[in-house]
């Protein structure tokens, strides 16, 4: 039993964070440098999840939490899961099927296929040549509509869905961490009434609660990843719990971060809203449902 990252895992984590800081800073999330996707592919963040690499879910979770902290493109989630379960080595969009038979496609630009949940199973399908992508709530992602779904190739292994849910949870935890750090950093330097606002208990306790939410969700992420790696019978529950807590942490920390930033947090040019909007997008990707949690 050891729920702290090994040296190898820490090295992965650090390398990811370092690369992201240099090539994919959070502040640029709304308009990424050209060629980012190919750099990501070259760096192996998609291929790393392919079946032959044998990378464990625990390490993946650590890496994706770092990517999530910089609001990396959400198509990384679908592409990584696609690489593992559908044999796709390319960019895959996220498909969110609607009850009326249509679907939203997130980040379909340049993607040849899409991956999503269909009646609780992971499925994929090829994308038509041209799709009219519009901006989405999350300024780093686009959304396109498909009026009807083509035929879907289903993955029969239930672990495929858990994989997507786990990585999305990791992304959400990254967003929750980013919001906590941004708020705390601001609370240390912004002064009001002659003191840093972080001196005031009201602000300090908002930040403390952000830290609690992030720590709770991250712990469950680690446990869930290990449970999945170990093939534990309750892995589905643990992954669902991780996703639920991660989504809550990301949304609540996203809101709190705006509150701590005051007027600045209300402006488009500041970064806090980027974390919150990302959190709202992630909540729709492989959400945890009550059945899994109360099973």
């Amino acid at each position: 039993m050891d729920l702290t990252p090994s040296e190898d895992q820490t090295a992965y984590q650090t390398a990811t964070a370092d690369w992201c800081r240099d090539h994919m800073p959070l502040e640029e999330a709304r308009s990424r440098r050209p060629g980012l996707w190919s750099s990501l592919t070259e760096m192996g963040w998609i291929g790393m999840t392919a079946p032959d690499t044998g990378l464990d879910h625990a390490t993946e979770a650590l890496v994706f939490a770092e990517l999530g902290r910089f609001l990396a493109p959400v198509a990384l989630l679908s592409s990584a899961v696609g690489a593992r379960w559908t044999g796709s080595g390319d960019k895959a969009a996220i498909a969110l099927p609607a009850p009326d038979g249509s679907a939203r496609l997130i980040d379909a630009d340049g993607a040849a296929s899409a991956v999503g949940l269909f009646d609780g199973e992971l499925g994929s399908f090829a994308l038509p040549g041209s799709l009219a992508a519009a901006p989405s709530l999350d300024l780093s992602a686009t959304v396109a509509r498909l009026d009807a779904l083509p035929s879907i190739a289903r993955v029969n292994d239930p672990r495929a869905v858990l994989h997507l849910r786990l990585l999305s949870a990791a992304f959400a935890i990254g967003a929750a961490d980013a919001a906590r750090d941004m708020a705390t950093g601001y609370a240390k330097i912004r002064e009001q009434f002659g003191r840093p606002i972080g001196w005031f208990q009201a602000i300090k306790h908002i930040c403390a609660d952000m830290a609690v939410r992030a720590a709770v969700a991250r712990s469950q992420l680690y446990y869930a990843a290990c449970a999945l790696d170990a093939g534990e019978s309750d892995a589905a529950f643990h992954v669902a719990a991780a996703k639920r807590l991660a989504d809550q942490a990301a949304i609540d920390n996203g809101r709190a971060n705006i509150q701590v930033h005051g007027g600045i947090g209300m402006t488009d040019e500041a970064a806090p809203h980027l974390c919150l909007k990302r959190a709202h997008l992630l909540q729709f990707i492989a959400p945890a449902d009550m059945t899994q949690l109360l099973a």
Partner: protein
Amino acid sequence: MDIGFSPEETRFREECRDWLHANVPAERRPPDAIDAIDFDKAWQRRLFDAGWAGINWPSEYGGRGLSIVQQVIWLEEYARAGAPWIGANFVGINHGGPTLIINASEEQKAYHLPRILKGEAIWCQGFSEPGAGSDLAGIRTKARIEGDELVVNGSKIWTSFAHVADWQELVLRTEEGSERHKGLSWVICDMHVPGITIRPIRKISGQTEFAEVFYDDVRIPLANVVGGLGNGWKVAMSTLSFERGTGFIADQVAQSREIEDLIEKARARGLIKDMRIAESLAQMRSEVAALRAMTYRNISEVMRTGQPGPEASVIRLFTSELGQRLERMAVLLMGEEMIDFAYGDDNGISDYLRGFAQTIAGGSAQIQRDIIGERLLGLPKSR
């Protein structure tokens, strides 16, 4: 205690309702401030011509000189009729004008008040500064006196309608080296004079209603000081006592409509069967009702004593937090539609995003709680 209205008040309500029914414009107010300016001015003029501008403003300056209850009735009916937001006229009608009524000289009042009521002069606010958000006493924008003029340097932020405004209510530090509440002055600034630069600020919902305003040796006649040099804090604080609790009415009628809409939507989508949704809607419906009752109580207190009760701070805090809960529910009922939001969309999602301002602007929720603890409950001051 009673919740009835007199026959005269009821008649007045009917008049309001009839006129609004016949006159509320069919077209929607354009969402962006610049596009909306002509609309806002024309609508204000129409209100004025029909005698609905300044219900409780003194009649010598173009108001109606009626009672607070009539003002409440007008505001309720106005909101119920879905009449357009007064937009660019907001600061003049709800803030600048009332401050002038209490503090300004005859000349200042005679010049400005009718122009505000007629929609001829658009006002904006100049209180907040980049370095002093919730801390009004931390103002650093300063003016030196040269002859019969103030020469202003500094900047203001979160100024709504700055780019369409003719006048600004500006609070400045006019006494060099003064600190906190002292040495401030409340001044009428002409927004068309040289030295003013306006940088629009985009909100996280995409709208650009507010701006940063920079002052570079801007000259303002000393005659534009309101309430005397160095009395700016007192003048700024007096505004609330004119408004006397009626400022919450429009928000509350809007919240009443919002909760009924949400209940209807939840029913239409079959979501009301989910007890989490039902419980939350029932809770907010109760709270919206209570908030109206609390406002009535506060206004009744004003009618009885001439002063709003200290519970205005409770109303302010509760309204803002309830508003956010309503917006969250609206977004929850939307589900994945939320993803389709794009800058410029004017819907429940932009309301949700803009809604964060409710617990930030005008003294954050934290500061409102300090005020309630200190002024209402008498706990020791922390700041």
